[in-house]
């Protein structure tokens, strides 16, 4: 009897791993890795809050994208089937610098106008908006001499003065002018 008691001195810890496994599996299953990434948009102030200022834009400076209620695209008055083609077209429009008389005069005057219909699906709108933003990010990234992905990281972290300098330099003279009209 006394001999047996001496052997049982330590607590049996072999099942500790099992308990830890159980907890681990619980956390593995319930974990959703929080993602805090998305497409950014800055809305203009409410139309009632400021007086209407009539600003005239030359027709050729505006790159018009229309989406109808059945998600069909009309880009510069021509039908288009694949929203991915918009990226290249926007880049050509913005960086035209007067070369093509139908496109923008200079990058700072170029405007991308995006108009959807009330019946347009959110999916299509995001696809088009993504390409418009992507075109600008591509332009900025190229000017800054970095990849598009790196550019987006720089633009998301402007607290760093180094990033801020790169950011301002790349954006100089080329404002991101994406205008989203209210759908009709």
């Amino acid at each position, binding site marked *: 009897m006394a001999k047996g008691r001496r052997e049982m001195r330590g607590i049996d810890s072999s099942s500790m791993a099992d308990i830890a496994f159980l907890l*681990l599996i619980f*956390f593995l299953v319930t974990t*959703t890795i929080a993602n805090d990434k998305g497409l*950014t948009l800055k809305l203009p102030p409410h139309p009632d809050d400021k007086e209407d200022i009539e600003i005239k834009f030359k027709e050729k400076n505006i790159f018009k994208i229309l989406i109808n209620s059945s998600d069909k695209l009309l880009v510069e008055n021509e039908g288009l089937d694949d929203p991915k083609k918009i990226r290249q077209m926007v880049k050509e429009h913005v960086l035209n610098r007067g070369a093509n008389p139908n496109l923008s005069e200079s990058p700072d005057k170029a405007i991308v106008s995006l108009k959807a219909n*009330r019946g347009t*699906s959110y999916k299509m*709108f995001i696809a088009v908006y993504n390409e418009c933003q992507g075109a600008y990010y591509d332009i900025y990234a190229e000017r800054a001499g970095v990849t598009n992905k790196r550019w987006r*990281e720089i633009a998301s972290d402007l607290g760093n003065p180094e990033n801020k300098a790169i950011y301002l330099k790349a954006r100089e003279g080329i404002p991101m002018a994406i205008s989203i009209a209210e759908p009709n």
Partner: protein
Amino acid sequence: MAKFTKKSKTSQEIPTAALPDIIFMLLFFFMVTTVMRENTINVKQKMPDATELRKLQRKSLVSYLYMGEPKNTVLYGDEPKIQTNDVFIEVKDVILWVSKEKDKLSENERDQITIAFKADEDVKMGLISDVQLKLRKANALKVMFYVRQIADI
């Protein structure tokens, strides 16, 4: 010639004493990274795809707006609805909701409030733009569309 088949006296078992430690290490990692979902989402959430994602700068300034077809269509119908926190709200209530969210922030940060749209891809732009118009009225101008990232090519 010595015998090669010598019976080893050492035990053949792998020591498992360090196993709990390893498991605990993993466990702590997951415990720390886990964020428990604060509220149940009652609308369908299938995000649209996009590539040009940017990271949010400050998470504390973000308020979430869920939009989509209700999961319980028998009770709530199949028209897309707006959900905030735990309740469904109408488009007209968005301004009130924004001002409530702004009250939670400190005074100098109120203009920087970011509204995150977590909308289902089948929601129509009519609803989205109605909400955006209300946000403009409420002076919450920073918007972020939550999307599903697809690989850049």
